[in-house]
């Protein structure tokens, strides 16, 4: 395909969902069928076109230069420092196409599933309009050509999540959760705005009128050693700060510690929303941006170390919390958090390819798990895994797909999760503590997923309903995703095991994220740490350890919750205070609540008091009161009695004469 066609297709993929959302909102709210058709159709179209673009890109081979098409959105013509132009457009290269394929394909499955899940909901059209808008926002991030555009859609993703999490707007917890998501993301965006400005003007300062928002321009500067050195010398410590501030935006969207608190609450939205948010959109945005702007992060070493540790802490913290959750969606939510931490950790250790790969595989099996959970909730009318049990017999399709997702997530050979987890662990090989955190998280992941499966799907049914299999419109998407979860990982396997040999996913990713198109391969081995992580073959020690801990995790969970050889109650008692700490989510929510309710609101109230009593009370009203008082005093002089006036006239006259005489004496 020529560049024009590619750009046109990208525009269609990007704008189809928003057109659908607008049409639904304006015209077809009443007719549910058309609304659903428009919404689902736009995303499925996007998915198909993305796949076409993907194959086109594969045919062109690794390192194809990006196709960029953009138009001026707003500009300031400044002759003094050069024009500042804000653009909107599409940048089509391997990474954006891969992301858009994930959004399109996983999204399509979720949209179809939603047709079944949302049946009978009174806000049907509203739901599908918002849902399509969500996909649009995410695609806008995917195809962004510059920082301003990515920030614009970044905010739009934030607002879509606000609207969808708070979909049941009469439910206080739902609207509060939506608000929380939006606000937490806003704090992340605070950092991101500053980071973008810092970077833009630093580039301006050194290179003159260069578009310091544009990804391509920045990439050119950062990948060229001479210009990079020039820039870093000029920026000094601010380079690391700038990269970190931009990462703060990713911390908000990808829910990294300590901005992770919104994600578990986001379960208040309808399940398809959770699936979309946790798999293909929103949380993926942060990781995607790190990969997208890797030329920046890769050279900002201090920021990278911080990123790696934040990722590691998030992964471990969330995995421990997931172990003690009873709500099936909450388990999955914390699992998402933990896996995001994994990806970010990998990115922070110069393994952006591994991070992106895990993002792709995770999107498939996490969407699968969420929708499986939704199917279970739909059948049992409860979220509590202790009120389920024995569902394997009643819901065959849901069960086998859910188990496939579980095994993929746990990283069992040869399912999708195995390959990407392996890449992450090999990437983190060189920072020992983080490597062991990674291994520990792998164990915990297998354990909590095993706990969930054994409790919900096996044993005896403990609820009081009549669970039954969901309709085909719900389980067929599950089956499709399950196939991806089982076989999808092979495309990214190391070269000697990969069905495509040397031309697997990693070869494309490596080229895409290391440099601009030309001469990319040499750069790979020259990462700042000297760590080129593309594996030609499996790191046997990493793979074996990873698999062993995963199997161990599943086995231990079987002993606790399957065969019940061990008692979970005793374990709880054994861990005592640690259990309390973990089950209260490390009291982070309480800490934030304190900050918001006490500190912030207290400060606001203080300002209000100052306003009311000092500025208005003393200054403004005081001034007015003073004027009135003075008027009042002077009024009393007008007594209306002649003798008063005569006395005053005489007094005044005497005073004047006196002053005149005395004055003459003194000053001549």
């Amino acid at each position: 395909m020529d560049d024009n066609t590619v750009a046109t297709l990208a525009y269609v993929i990007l704008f189809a969902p928003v057109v659908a959302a607008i049409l639904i909102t304006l015209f077809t709210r009443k007719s549910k069928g058309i609304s659903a058709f428009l919404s689902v159709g736009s995303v499925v179209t996007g998915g198909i076109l993305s796949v076409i673009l993907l194959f086109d890109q594969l045919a062109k081979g690794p390192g194809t230069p990006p196709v960029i098409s953009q138009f001026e959105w707003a500009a300031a013509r400044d002759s003094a420092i050069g024009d500042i132009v804000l653009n909107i457009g599409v940048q089509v290269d391997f990474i954006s196409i891969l992301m858009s394929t994930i959004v399109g394909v996983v999204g399509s499955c979720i949209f179809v599933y939603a047709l079944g899940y949302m049946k009978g909901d009174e806000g049907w059209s509203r739901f599908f309009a918002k849902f399509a808008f969500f996909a649009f926002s995410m695609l806008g991030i995917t195809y962004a050509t510059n920082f301003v555009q990515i920030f614009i859609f970044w905010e739009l993703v934030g607002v879509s999540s606000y609207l969808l999490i708070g979909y049941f707007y009469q439910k206080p917890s739902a609207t509060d959760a939506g608000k929380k998501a939006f606000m937490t993301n806003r704090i992340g965006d605070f950092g991101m705005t500053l980071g973008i400005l810092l970077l833009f003007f630093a580039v301006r300062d050194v290179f003159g009128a260069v578009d310091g928002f544009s990804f391509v321009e920045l990439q050119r500067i950062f990948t060229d050693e001479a210009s990079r050195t020039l820039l870093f010398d000029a920026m000094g410590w601010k380079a690391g700060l700038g990269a970190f501030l931009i990462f703060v935006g990713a911390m908000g969207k990808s829910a990294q510690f300590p901005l992770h608190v919104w994600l578990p609450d986001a379960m208040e939205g309808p399940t398809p929303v959770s699936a979309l948010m946790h798999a293909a959109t929103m949380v993926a945005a942060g990781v995607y941006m790190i990969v997208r702007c890797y030329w920046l992060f890769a050279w900002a070493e201090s920021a990278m170390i911080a990123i790696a540790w934040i990722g590691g802490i998030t992964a471990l913290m969330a995995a421990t919390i997931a172990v003690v959750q009873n709500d099936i969606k909450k388990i999955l939510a914390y699992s998402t958090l933990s896996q995001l931490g994994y990806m970010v950790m990998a990115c922070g250790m110069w393994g952006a390819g591994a991070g992106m790969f895990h993002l792709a595989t995770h999107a498939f099996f996490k969407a699968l798990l969420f929708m499986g959970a939704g199917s279970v909730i739909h059948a049992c009318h409860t979220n509590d895994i202790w009120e389920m049990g024995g569902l394997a017999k009643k819901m065959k399709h849901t069960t086998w797909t859910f188990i496939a997702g579980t095994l993929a997530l746990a990283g069992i050979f040869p399912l999708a999760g195995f390959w990407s987890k392996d890449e992450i662990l090999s990437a983190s090989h060189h920072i020992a503590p983080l490597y062991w955190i990674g291994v520990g998280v792998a164990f915990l992941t297998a354990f909590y997923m095993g706990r969930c499966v054994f409790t919900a799907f096996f044993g005896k049914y403990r609820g009081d309903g009549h669970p039954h299999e969901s309709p085909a419109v719900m389980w067929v998407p599950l089956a499709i995703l399950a196939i991806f979860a089982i076989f999808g990982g092979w495309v990214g396997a190391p070269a000697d095991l990969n069905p495509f040999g040397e031309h697997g996913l990693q070869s494309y990713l490596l080229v895409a994220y290391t440099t601009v198109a030309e001469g990319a391969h040499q750069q790979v081995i020259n990462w700042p740490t000297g760590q080129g992580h593309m594996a030609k073959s499996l790191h046997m020690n990493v793979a074996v350890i990873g698999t062993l801990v995963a199997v161990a995790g599943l086995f231990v969970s079987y002993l606790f919750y399957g065969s019940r050889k061990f008692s979970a109650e005793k374990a709880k008692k054994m861990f005592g205070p640690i259990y309390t700490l973990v089950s209260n989510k490390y009291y982070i929510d309480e800490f934030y609540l304190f900050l918001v309710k006490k500190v912030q609101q207290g400060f606001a109230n203080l300002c209000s008091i100052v306003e009311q009593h000092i500025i208005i009370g003393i200054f403004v009203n005081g001034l007015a009161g003073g004027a009135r008082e003075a008027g009042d005093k002077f009024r009393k002089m007008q007594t209306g009695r002649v003798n008063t006036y005569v006395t005053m006239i005489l007094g005044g006259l005497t005073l004047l004469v006196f002053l005149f005489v005395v004055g003459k004496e003194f000053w001549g």
Partner: protein
Amino acid sequence: MHLSLATLIILVPALTTLLLFFVPAKKVQVVRWLAAGGAFCTVIISITMMATYDKAVGGWQFTQVVTWVEDLGISWNVGADGISVAMLLLTSLVIMAGTLVSFKVTDRPKEFYILLMALVTGVFGVFAGRDMFFFYFSYELAVIPMYLLIGVWGSTNKEYATMKLTLFLTAGAVVALIGLLLLYWHTKEFFDANPALLEAFRNAHPDFSDATSSSFNLLQVQYAAKHAMEMGGPASREFFSLGFQLWVFPLILLGFGAIAPMWPLHTWSPGGHAAAPSAASMLHAGVLMKLGSYGIIRIGLTCLPEGAAKILPIVAALCMMNIIYGGMVAMAQKDLKFVIGYSSSSHMGYVLLGIASMNVIGLNGAVFLMFAHGIMTALAFGLIGWFYDQTHTRMLPDLGGLAKQIPFIGVCFTIMALASAGLPGFANFASEFMVLIGSWQEAVRGNSWFFLYTILAVWGIVISATYLLRAARWAFFGPLNPCWEGKIKDADTWFWRAPFIMLIAALVLFGCYPKLLIDVIATGTGPIVDIIENARQAVAGIK
């Protein structure tokens, strides 16, 4: 006689006001539709101006000059540049929405509309006027009807509020008037001393071929300032010396700053908004506040650029009080109109910050934000008015879950809150983002304080999201407060919806494609930035 569009846009509401006097008070429908018709004409005119404004040429267009009082140098001197075009469009959209929303007014509608149209005549006069006398006259014309509108049709402590508002604004106007008169005399002295330049001015502007040395003509003052400043160093020159500018600019700044409203002169505004009837608070917050920042840009920056260059950095510090302090106070409010009122003073802080950064993108952002904020806040007060008429309370704890009962208003309110919180897709985002870039650019240029200001201003966006979402959450989401069950009517006909849809459409149109408006605004701000840039270089190094 040929009437230019700038003349028309002032004449139409003036004529409407006049016609309204002759309609019998009983014919309420006639009164309403006449006012709406007048407003509609202004919308058509302003859109035509926007569409036909020649961006390639720039400068003043649609001009018309008719001498009024020759001895004093007062003339009917109107026109529009890029900034004016944007402001006229804003005003016409807000008055259109305001007249439609006011169809609900049943108490003395004739008088209400007469005052409303008189007020807006004044506003148009300021935005299209190029004569300082006329500028001041129109400004007062806009302020006085507000006194009556609040005093008669208002609510919530209206006597106090309207008194305070009028006193503040009139006091501000008087301070500004002193500044204007000083400029007038100074210009006269300048031209008396340099008759050759007066001749040159006459030749350069065929419209003003009979100009004398005494003139309220803004262009003539600007011409004098420009040439005076070319005649020597800031301290040594005879006219428009730095000393003079440092003495007059603060008068202009404080005078117009009172209505902008600059901290700590802001206290009249939230109370005034809260007390005013819907249409009045729409105009008030939407348009009247912009007169202040417009005056600072139009007169302060162009005629007294060296004074501005020295003093604006201090103003930037006050903006932080507007943004952060105003935002925090908004967060503590329970009355919804006070939330929006303090939020307005917080957002106007961004406008002033954009002006204070004194560069292209900052000033463009500031003017664009004046437009965006005007539309947004008019929308807010219109919506609040809609349910306040029925609930008779705006206290957030008493409301709750209204979205169930009035879904259309709920959706619009959410849109307003998101727009105000600076969400992309609405004009507010693009403009605030430009202001932030401008502020950072000023910091990079050398005034390191602006780093701090930018950081605080970005944090201000977080604060604004906090109180706006909180307000939306309390008023519209969650379970419906049972006492409103079935009591409140939604805007269920297209007629009632029209004003809100129109305002939202404007926000979205210019938010999705800001270039439409920014390119027009830029033709107006460009010359101003050039003037101020020269002045900054002249005064650089002088303490």
